[in-house]
């Protein structure tokens, strides 16, 4: 049999050949867009205008953005949304996982049902909850009336709308926390739980002193991923409130979308994207530091 070309390559080249496709995709899909993003963020550029009319304006896009009170309002709103939704997800998710860690009849089916919302497409979830929160014929107001409450304008008032989106987001993403927390709880060796039993620990003491600290690394990863994701939440706001009323429920990333594809201020949008990237990278680095600290202990 004739030897093919692959047999004559050195190991290094051989490996290179296999890595090449992935590398090409990475350069095309990540490196190139990122570098052009940095470049565009220094131009007064709009994709609707011919390139000839654009000029280098240095960091003007950044200074304009960071001195605009509107952007700071969006950051504050986004922060509020992130804290509320991730807080609920972590608390509820951990609590449900605590009850799902033990074996009982029907546990697997229950677990699967709990996982379902996460599998849905975010935009679908958005519209689903938009109907539920419809002030005239939505399920939310129907249930509210059944228990004797007043009809609420869920999506038309910003102080209600943030809760509506928080509920939708928590409904969709709490399963993710349940998934990781269950795995974390179940990974604690049985000997440890039995030792705590024999040591006379009450369920509460055992949970806070043994279970929680031992599953902290995985729970922190869940927290980090949820923070990043919630920070970028866009689809639910798009489907449920459209950023309204006014732009009161627009998150930073919603605003970014509007800048880029509503107003086509491509340069300014690029600058905002870079700012968001820096924030998320910073956030992640703090967590990674902390995680490494935990795993090195002992």
């Amino acid at each position, binding site marked *: 049999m004739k030897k093919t070309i692959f047999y004559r390559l050195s190991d290094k080249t051989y490996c290179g050949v296999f890595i090449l496709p992935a590398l090409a995709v990475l350069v095309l899909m990540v490196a190139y867009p990122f570098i052009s993003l940095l470049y565009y963020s220094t131009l007064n550029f709009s994709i609707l205008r011919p390139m000839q009319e654009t000029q280098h304006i240095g960091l003007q896009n950044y200074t304009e953005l960071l001195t605009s009170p509107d952007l700071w309002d969006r950051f504050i709103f986004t922060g509020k949304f992130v804290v509320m939704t991730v807080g609920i997800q972590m608390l509820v998710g951990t609590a449900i996982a605590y009850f799902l860690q033990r074996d009982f009849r029907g546990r697997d089916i229950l677990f699967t049902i709990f996982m379902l919302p996460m599998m849905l497409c975010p935009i679908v979830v958005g519209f689903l909850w938009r109907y539920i929160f419809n002030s005239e014929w939505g399920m939310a107001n129907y249930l509210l009336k059944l228990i004797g409450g007043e009809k609420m304008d869920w999506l038309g008032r910003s102080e209600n709308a943030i809760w509506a989106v928080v509920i939708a987001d928590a409904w969709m993403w709490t399963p993710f926390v349940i998934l990781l927390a269950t795995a974390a709880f179940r990974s604690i060796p049985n*000997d440890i739980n*039995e*030792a705590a039993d024999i*040591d006379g*620990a009450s369920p509460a003491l055992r949970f806070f002193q043994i279970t929680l600290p031992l599953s902290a690394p995985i729970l922190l990863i869940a927290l980090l991923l949820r923070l990043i994701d919630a920070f970028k939440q866009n689809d639910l706001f798009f489907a449920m409130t459209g950023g309204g009323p006014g732009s009161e429920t627009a998150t930073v990333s919603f605003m970014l979308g509007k800048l880029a594809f509503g107003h086509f201020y491509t340069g300014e949008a690029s600058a905002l994207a870079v700012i968001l990237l820096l924030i998320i990278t910073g956030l992640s680095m703090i967590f990674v530091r902390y995680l490494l600290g935990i795993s090195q202990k*002992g």
Partner: protein
Amino acid sequence: MASIKLNNLTMRYGNSTAVNGINLAIDDGEFVVFLGPSGCGKTTTLRCIAGLENPTSGDILFDGVKVNHLHASARNVAMVFQFISLYPHKTVRKNIAFPLRARGLSEAQIVEKIKWVEDVFSLSEVMDRYPNSLPPGSRQLAALARAVVRDPKVLLLDEPLSAIDEQFREEMRWELKHLQSRLGVTTIHVTHDQREAMSLADRIVLMHSGDVVQIGTPQALFNDPINEFAAHFIGSPAMNLADVQVASGGLMLGSSLLPLGSLPTPLSEPGNLRLGIRPNHVQRDGKAGEPGCVLALIEDRYAIGREEYFQFSLGGQKFVGIDKEKNRQLAEVGTSEMIRFDCAEMRFFTPDGIKVVAP
């Protein structure tokens, strides 16, 4: 401290029986070792006593009071596990403090108790380190400290030494025995290592397939095994066991006759039996014509330290002997020698392994 009584304790998982109606009484302050091969039910019995398993039937009594319904945390037992006992995210000090905090002791009492075990177990150097940074020996010592710090009624040890290096295990055995007698706590130790059992136990409970085979002092089990399983399981190297036929003037092993001056008391009539004799009662100093002496071809020999072992066959059945005299010439493979079986140390079992008792 407490005495323990097991009444007909049975544990079944589905169709398989792990513990088959055990009856046992353990005295206050006694050091009892559950010994047996893996799967014999020793750990399951221990876990039932701890309250980690609910027995299928039967009663567990502490000081005469039934504790079946009590949860592990309410029985005031302490336990040391085989591998991971300590909480990995707490320092040794916090590990030891945990059962005290769980019982709501005051801070001053906790400090005092910790100081006490720190001294008893010589732990001062490791108190503020994390378990994973300690060698297995210190880890188990710390686990033991955590177990006894709250004055448990019963101390349960589930193969606590098996994860420790052979070298250090010996040291730990001494330590454990010393501590137990000093603290005087009723202790049940589970192991499959007969040397560990022999060196630690006041009494050994030998188990096999969910049943108690024999209960007794290490010496009683060694000298007077109740059946072939006990004979084979205890002692290292294992007891020689061979099929013999009682004939006039001695025992027939295949075609070779092992002459006996007078038949030992249990043997009254001819028949098939199993002969058991420990290797240290088989010597190379036999004299032709004397009882228990027979000529055999040395097939193999090896030495462990100062102990010389030799192997030979009689009627196709292999025997191992140990040379006692240190200055003797070493056995030579391929030569025939006069072997002496110590007639007083022979044990006899029926063909199905039960000890033959004098009529």
